[in-house]
C-alpha cells in the first residue's frame, strides 16, 4: 500500500491541506502535490483501465511519460478528458474521475476482454469480423468503438480563453534541469537573449532528487542559486509550466505554457502558445527511465524506480511499505537506498547482472538491503494491486525460485535520452551499445536555412548521464549555441561536480531472458494500448518487419504517451525477434507535439466573432440597424436583403427589385475590388491582363473588362476607368479583390518586372454606392453639385465632382440595366453620404437593396456573374463574350490557351437563357439530360443551369445556363430532372430577358 510519510517531501507544503475528489471520494493532499502524488498518498493504487483489455492500472511514472493515470477532470464548460495525473498540479476542489470502464473502476465489464486476451492478440481485428459483410458497420464496429476511446467527450463550449505569444530570440533552452540551467547561463553570459522553458512547476529536474555535489554544494542548493542568478539577468526569460512542444523548420519552436491549469477559473488565458523563432535551440530535455518487461509488470504498484524515488523525495509518498526493486543498472539502487533511508522496507534488489553493480550496490549492502544478482522477476501477481512476486534466475525461462509477498515493485530498465525535439526536424540518432540507448548524432543535426545546425542537445538528453559530465556538457552546449547565434565567448570557469562512477548497464529486454510464451503474453511493453512482448514477436513472425509496420500492426507507441516508455523496449524486442541489430531496425518517426497540447491553445484568441477578421464597409452599422440579412462574402458581410418587420426575406427581395426598377434603389458596392494601376506601362500591362484592349481607353471613360488565367479560364470581370494617361482604376468582384491584386503582383514581380507599373489595392479607401433606378438622376440632381445629365455624363463615363457637398467620383455604369450611377466617396464619409442619399431619396421612394436583388436584376438583363456562370472551367467564348476579346492584341493572358483543341471544340456548352414551360423556377445546378449513357454507365447530359431566379419583373422563373451548342438551338425544349424525381421542361431562349435594347440604362 502506498502511504504518505510523516516527514520529508521537498515540494509539498504540509501547512496547506488541499481537498479534492476522485471518483466521488473526498481525499486530501498538500499544496505542491501533483494529482498523482496525492492519489498515491491516499493509497489510491488503482487509477484507470487500459485501452484494449480494460486491465486495472496504477500510476507507473512521475512525469510526462505516464501512460496509465489519465483522468476526466472538471465539469461542464471546464471539463477535460485524458488529463495526466502525474503532470496535474493539485488545487482545491479538483475533481477527477477515472476513465474507460463500465460500470465502475473497480468492476469493469470490459475486463472480460482481458480474460479473452489470448484470443485478441495484436492485429486480431484484421483477421476477424470479415463475415457477414454488414456486421462490421452494424455490430462489430459499434462494439469496438464503444469499448475503445479513453475519456468522455466534452459536451459544452469551452469557457476558457487562450493566447498566442510571438517571440524572436537568440537561444531557447528547453528543460530547466541542471543541464538546462547551466546551458542557459553559459549562453546568457555572452549577452545572448535566452528563453528557458521548463514543463513542470519546478526548476532543477532530477538532480535534486538524485543528489550529488556541484562546486562543493549539494546540487539542490546549487540550483537554487543558479535560478536566482538567471532571474536577475535582463537578457534571460524564465518560464515554468512551459513545454517545448515541437521544433519546426528554420528554428521555429512552439512552447505550450499551462498558465492556469492549476488555478482554473482565475482570470487570464488558460494556455499560452509561445511561437518562437530562435537562432539556436538547446534541448536539455533529460532522459526517461525504461520499464522492465516481465509478466505482470502492469499490475498497480509496479512503478519505475525513478518514479518511486520522485514520489518519496518530492512528496514524501512511499509507493509501498515492502518493496522489491528490479534493475539492470546502478541507478535502480538509488531508489532502494532512498526507500531504506526513509524507513521503508526493501525486501530485495534483484539485479539481472551476474555480478551486480558498483559503489551504489556497496552502499545498499551497507544499509542492509538484500541484493540478489543474476535474478529477475518471473511474475508479479495481485490483480488490482501488487501482492507477490515470483523470483527467478534472469538467465532462464522463468522457473520460480522463490515467492515473496510485497506491495510494490520498483523497476529500472535503464534510461533513454529524450530526443524528440532533436528529431522533430530531421536530427538523426545513433545507437550507443554500451549504454543501450539512442542519443543524438551530433554529426547529423537538424539544419536551418543556412545549412548550419540549429539544435544542440545537452546533458542527459545528449546521452551524458553522470552529473559531473552533464555539467561540462551543458556549459559547452550553451556556449556553442551562443556562438552560433553570433556572440563572442569568454573563458568560463569549469564547474566541478563530484564524480560517481557506475557499473555499466546490461540490456534486459525480457525478464527472464528466455521467458516462456505464457510470460511473454503478460509482459507489457505499451501499457495504455495493451501491447505485450508476444504481440511484437507475433508481428515480426507475420512479416510486419519494418518498425513502422510493427508499430501500426500492434499499436505500440501510438497511445497518448506516444511510446515514451515503450518504444525502445518494443524495438529491441522486434530486433531480437528478427535477429537484427537494434540500430538496423531503427526508430519510428518522432512527431510533434512532445506531449499532447490543447486544441484551444492551437486556435488561440481567434474564435467566435473574431475567428477571422470581419471586414465592414462604412455603412455596415446602418445595414445592421435596418434589417440586413447578412451573407458572408469572403471576409466581408454583405446584406442579402433588407427585410422589414413581418416581411420574409424572399418578399423583401421581390420588393427591392421592383422598387429599384420603378423608383430608385441603393446598393452598398463598397466591397467591390478597386485596384489602382499606375505607371508609364499601365496600359500595356492591362492589355496583357485583360482580354480586351485597355490602352485605347480614353481618360474619363469606362470599359467592362474580362480577366482570364493562363489556362484561358475566365477568373474575374469588372469595369476599368481610365483616370489619366498613366492611371487606371480596375474594379473587380468582391471575392476577387485580393486575389486579383495578388495575380497582378505575381505577374509584375515574376514575369514583367521590367514594366514601370505599380498596383495598389484601394478597396477599403472608398465607400461606393450604386444609385439605381429611373429616379436615380432626379435624386442626384436634388442633392446638387455635379451635372449628371445624360449629355454631360453619358453612359460608361466617370467624373470627379461634388454631390450634396461630398467630394465624389461618380461612374455611370450599370449592372442592373437601369439608369445607374456608382458613386465613390472617401470611406470616412461613406455613412454620411449614404444617409444623405436615403434622406434625399425619401420622396422618390428610395430603398436599399441587397445582393439577391442585385443578382436577380443582372440575370434579368443577361449579365453574367463570376462564380455563377463561371466556375474555373469556363472561357469567355462560352458566355458569348467574344466581343470583349480583342482580336487586335498580339497577346494577353489566356489567349494561347483559348486556342487549344478543347477550347475551340464546337461542342462546348454555351450560354443561353432558359424558361420553363410553366413559369416555374428551375432548380439551381440542375443538368439537362441527353439520350443514353456514357461508357461508364453515367447518364449523358447536354447542359446545366448556372443561375436561376423568380423574376418579379417578368413574374416567372428565369434562368441562365450552359447548353451544348445552345445559341444554335433557340426555341428548343430540353429536360432538367430534379433530385426528387420531378422533371422540368425548359425552352432555350435569349439570355437577355429585360430591356434587350438597353433603353433604360442609356437614358
Amino acid at each position, binding site marked *: 500500500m502506498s502511504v504518505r510519510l510523516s516527514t520529508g517531501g521537498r515540494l509539498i507544503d504540509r501547512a496547506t491541506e488541499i481537498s479534492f475528489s476522485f471518483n466521488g471520494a473526498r481525499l486530501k493532499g498538500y499544496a505542491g502535490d501533483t494529482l498523482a502524488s496525492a492519489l498515491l498518498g491516499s493509497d489510491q493504487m488503482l487509477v484507470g483501465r487500459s485501452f484494449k483489455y480494460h486491465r486495472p492500472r496504477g500510476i507507473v511514472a512521475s512525469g510526462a511519460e505516464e501512460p496509465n493515470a489519465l483522468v476526466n477532470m472538471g465539469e461542464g464548460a471546464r471539463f477535460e478528458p485524458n488529463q495526466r495525473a502525474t503532470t496535474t498540479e493539485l488545487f482545491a476542489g479538483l475533481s477527477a474521475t477515472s476513465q474507460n470502464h463500465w460500470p465502475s473502476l473497480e468492476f469493469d465489464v470490459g475486463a472480460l476482454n482481458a480474460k479473452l486476451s489470448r484470443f485478441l492478440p495484436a492485429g486480431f481485428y484484421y483477421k476477424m469480423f470479415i463475415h457477414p459483410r454488414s456486421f*462490421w458497420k452494424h455490430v462489430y464496429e459499434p462494439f469496438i468503438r464503444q469499448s475503445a476511446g479513453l475519456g468522455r467527450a466534452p459536451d459544452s463550449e469551452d469557457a476558457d480563453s487562450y493566447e498566442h505569444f510571438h517571440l524572436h530570440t537568440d537561444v531557447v533552452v528547453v528543460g530547466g534541469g541542471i543541464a538546462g540551467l547551466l546551458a542557459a547561463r553559459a549562453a546568457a553570459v555572452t549577452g545572448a537573449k535566452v528563453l528557458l522553458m521548463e514543463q513542470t512547476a519546478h526548476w532543477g529536474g532530477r538532480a535534486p532528487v538524485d543528489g550529488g555535489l556541484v562546486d562543493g554544494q549539494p546540487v539542490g542548493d546549487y540550483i537554487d542559486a543558479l535560478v536566482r542568478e538567471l532571474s536577475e539577468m535582463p537578457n534571460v526569460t524564465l518560464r515554468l509550466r512551459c513545454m517545448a512542444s515541437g521544433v519546426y523548420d528554420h528554428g521555429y519552436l512552439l512552447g505550450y505554457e499551462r498558465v492556469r491549469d492549476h488555478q482554473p477559473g482565475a482570470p487570464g488565458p488558460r494556455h499560452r502558445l509561445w511561437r518562437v523563432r530562435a537562432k539556436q535551440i538547446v534541448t536539455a530535455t533529460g532522459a526517461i527511465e525504461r520499464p522492465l518487461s516481465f509478466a505482470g509488470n502492469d499490475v498497480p504498484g509496479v512503478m519505475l524506480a525513478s518514479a518511486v524515488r520522485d514520489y518519496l523525495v518530492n512528496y514524501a509518498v512511499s509507493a509501498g511499505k515492502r518493496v522489491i526493486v528490479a534493475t539492470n543498472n546502478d541507478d535502480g539502487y538509488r531508489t532502494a537506498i532512498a526507500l531504506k533511508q526513509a524507513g521503508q522496507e526493501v525486501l530485495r534488489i534483484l539485479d539481472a547482472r551476474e555480478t551486480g553493480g558498483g559503489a551504489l550496490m556497496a552502499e545498499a549492502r551497507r544499509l542492509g538491503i538484500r541484493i540478489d544478482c543474476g535474478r529477475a522477476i518471473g511474475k508479479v501477481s495481485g490483480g488490482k494491486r501488487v501482492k507477490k512476486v515470483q523470483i527467478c534466475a534472469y538467465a532462464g525461462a522463468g522457473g520460480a525460485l522463490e515467492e515473496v509477498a510485497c506491495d510494490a515493485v520498483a523497476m529500472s530498465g535503464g534510461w533513454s535520452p529524450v530526443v524528440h525535439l532533436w528529431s522533430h526536424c530531421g536530427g538523426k540518432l545513433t545507437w550507443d551499445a554500451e549504454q543501450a540507448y539512442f542519443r543524438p548524432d551530433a554529426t547529423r543535426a537538424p539544419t536551418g536555412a543556412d545549412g548550419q545546425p540549429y539544435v544542440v542537445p545537452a546533458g542527459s538528453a545528449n546521452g551524458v548521464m553522470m552529473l559531473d559530465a552533464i555539467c561540462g556538457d551543458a556549459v559547452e552546449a550553451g556556449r556553442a549555441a551562443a556562438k552560433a547565434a553570433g556572440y563572442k565567448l569568454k573563458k568560463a570557469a569549469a564547474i566541478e561536480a563530484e564524480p560517481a562512477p557506475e557499473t555499466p548497464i546490461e540490456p534486459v529486454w525480457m525478464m527472464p531472458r528466455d521467458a516462456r510464451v505464457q510470460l511473454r503474453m503478460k509482459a507489457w511493453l505499451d501499457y495504455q494500448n495493451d501491447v505485450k512482448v508476444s504481440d511484437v514477436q507475433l508481428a515480426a513472425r*507475420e512479416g510486419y518487419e519494418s518498425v513502422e509496420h510493427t508499430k501500426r500492426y500492434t499499436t505500440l507507441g501510438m497511445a497518448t504517451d506516444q511510446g515514451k516508455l515503450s518504444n525502445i523496449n518494443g524495438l529491441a524486442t522486434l530486433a531480437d525477434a528478427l535477429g537484427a541489430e537494434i540500430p538496423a531496425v531503427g526508430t519510428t518517426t518522432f512527431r510533434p507535439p512532445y506531449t499532447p497540447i490543447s486544441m484551444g491553445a492551437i486556435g*488561440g484568441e481567434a474564435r467566435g466573432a473574431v475567428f477571422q477578421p470581419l471586414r465592414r464597409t462604412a455603412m455596415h452599422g446602418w445595414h445592421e440597424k435596418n434589417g440586413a440579412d447578412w451573407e458572408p462574402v469572403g471576409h466581408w458581410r454583405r446584406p442579402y436583403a433588407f427585410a422589414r418587420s413581418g416581411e420574409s426575406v424572399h418578399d423583401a427581395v421581390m420588393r427591392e427589385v421592383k422598387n429599384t426598377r420603378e423608383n430608385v434603389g441603393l446598393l452598398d458596392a463598397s466591397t467591390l475590388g478597386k485596384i489602382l494601376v499606375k505607371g508609364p506601362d499601365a496600359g500595356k500591362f492591362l492589355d496583357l491582363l485583360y482580354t480586351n484592349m485597355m490602352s485605347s481607353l480614353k481618360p474619363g471613360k469606362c470599359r467592362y473588362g474580362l480577366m482570364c488565367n493562363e489556362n484561358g479560364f475566365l477568373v474575374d470581370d469588372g469595369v476599368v476607368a481610365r483616370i489619366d494617361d498613366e492611371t487606371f482604376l480596375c474594379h473587380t468582384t468582391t471575392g476577387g479583390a485580393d486575389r486579383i491584386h495578388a495575380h497582378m503582383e505575381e505577374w509584375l514581380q515574376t514575369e514583367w518586372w521590367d514594366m514601370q507599373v505599380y498596383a495598389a489595392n484601394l478597396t477599403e479607401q472608398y465607400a461606393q454606392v450604386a444609385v439605381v433606378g429611373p429616379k436615380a438622376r432626379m435624386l442626384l440632381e436634388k442633392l446638387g453639385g455635379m451635372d449628371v445629365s445624360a449629355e454631360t455624363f453619358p453612359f460608361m463615363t466617370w467624373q470627379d465632382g461634388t454631390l450634396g457637398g461630398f467630394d465624389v467620383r461618380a461612374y455611370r455604369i450599370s449592372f442592373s440595366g437601369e439608369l445607374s450611377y456608382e458613386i465613390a466617396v472617401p470611406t470616412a464619409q461613406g455613412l454620411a453620404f449614404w444617409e444623405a442619399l436615403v434622406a434625399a431619396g425619401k420622396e422618390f421612394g428610395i430603398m436599399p437593396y441587397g445582393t439577391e436583388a442585385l443578382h436577380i436584376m443582372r440575370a434579368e438583363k443577361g449579365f453574367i456573374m463570376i462564380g455563377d456562370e463561371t466556375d474555373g472551367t469556363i472561357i469567355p467564348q462560352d458566355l458569348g463574350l467574344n466581343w470583349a476579346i480583342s482580336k487586335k492584341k498580339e497577346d494577353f493572358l489566356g489567349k494561347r490557351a483559348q486556342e487549344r483543341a478543347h477550347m475551340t471544340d464546337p461542342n462546348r456548352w454555351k450560354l443561353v437563357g432558359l424558361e420553363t414551360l410553366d413559369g416555374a423556377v428551375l432548380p439551381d445546378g440542375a443538368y439537362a439530360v441527353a439520350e443514353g449513357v456514357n461508357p461508364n454507365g*453515367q447518364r449523358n447530359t447536354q447542359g446545366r443551369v448556372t443561375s436561376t431566379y423568380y423574376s418579379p419583373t417578368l413574374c416567372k422563373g428565369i434562368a441562365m445556363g450552359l447548353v451544348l451548342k445552345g445559341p444554335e438551338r433557340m426555341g428548343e425544349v430540353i429536360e432538367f430532372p430534379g433530385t426528387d424525381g420531378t422533371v422540368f421542361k425548359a425552352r432555350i431562349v435569349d439570355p437577355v430577358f429585360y430591356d434587350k435594347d438597353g433603353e433604360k440604362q442609356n437614358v
Partner: protein
Amino acid sequence: MKRYSAFAIAREALRFHTGWERAWRSPEPRRRYDVVIVGAGGHGLATAYYLGKNFGITNVAVIEKGWLGGGNTGRNTTIIRSNYLQDPSAAIYEKARSLYETLSQDLNYNVMFSPRGVIMLAQTHHEVRGYQRTAHANALQGVTTEWISPERVKELVPIIRLDGPRYPVMGGLWQARGGTARHDAVAWGYARACSAMGMDIIQKCEVTGVRTEGGKVRGVDTTKGPIDCGKLGIVVAGHSSHLAEMGGFRLPIESVALQALVSEPIKPCMDVVVMANTVHGYMSQSDKGEMVIGGGTDGFNNYTQRGSFHHIEETVRALIETFPMISRLKMLRQWGGIVDMTGDRSPILSKTPVEGVFVNCGWGTGGFKAIPGSGWAMAELMAKGHSPLTADFGLDRFREGRFIDESVAAGVAH
C-alpha cells in the same frame, strides 16, 4: 494463403499464435518480370492485385523504396466518398467506393470499411449552390447523395454548432455510403493477396533508373540491381516527377506537404465524417476514438514529409468554430505527407511517351478513397491499353486544355 477467420484465431490461440504464417513474403528480386510496378502504396498494390485477379497477369513485382504502405497510403485521414462533380471523377471514385464495400471479403483481410456517411457542409450561399449542383450531377452519375437541411446535419452530428457567429451551417451534401477504412489494412490486405498470387513485393529497394531502348521500356535499375520488365507502372505519388525524369519525360505535377493530426482518444461522439470547406478543415472519429483532422496544403513545394505549424493552426481554429467542444481536446500527433498535385487537381492514369511505361499519379490530397478503383482501372489500362475509367485522365488533357476540374464547387465568391 491460410485464410483468416474467427475460427483461425481460436485455433491459433490454443498454440499461443505460433502458427501464423507471414502475411507476405519478402523475396529477393528476380531478373525479369512481365510487369514491374514502382511504389507499394495503395495504388501500386491495387494495380498489381487487379492485374492478377482480372487479367491473370501474376508475373509481377512491386518495388518499394521504403516499407509497403509507408507513403501517403499510411498517412492519410482515410475519408472515402465519391460525390465528385465531374463525370470522369465520379465514375472512378464510385467504382472505388463500391469495391471498398466488399474489399474485406475479397481480400480476406478486414480493411474496416465503414460506410458511416460523409457530410460536406455548406456555409455560404455559394457553397449551397455548388453542392446542389453536385447533388444533381451525382443523381445522373449513379452516385447516391442528398442535399440535407441544417437540422438533419445536427441530427447526424450532435457536436456541431450550426449557428456559429461567422459561418452558420446552411445545409450539406450527404453521402450515406461514404465513410472511412483502415489505411494500413488496405495496403496490407492487397499486399497479402498479391503475395499469395505469387507476386513479389520487394521492400527497401529504390528504383534509381528507367531503362529504355528505342522508345520502349526495358526495365529498371534499383538499389538491388537491374530488373527487366515488359511493362512498367509508375505509381509513386509525390515522387512521380523523379521517376518520369528517369524515363526521360516530364509530368505536370507539383509536390507539396499535406498535414493531418489526431486528438487523444475519447469515447465515441461523432459517427460521421464532416468536411467544412469554407473554413477549411475536416474531421472524423477513428475506431480508436481519436478525432482525425485534416486541412489544406502548404503553399510551397517540398519533400520533407512534415509541414509548417501555421496550417495546423488554421485547421484547428476552423474546426473549433465548427465543433466548439474540441477546444478542450488535445492534439496527440501531427504529421505530413507529400502529395502529388496536378493543375486541375485530378489524377493522371495514362500511357506515357515511353512505350510500355504507364503512370498513375496526381491523386493529391484525395487518393486513398480511390485505391481500389484506380487499381482496377490502371490494371485494365496496362493489360489492354485502354480503359473507360481512365480515358479522360490521360496526359494529353493538359495539352488540349481538357481539364477535369474538381475545385469548381469552391470557385469564387462574388
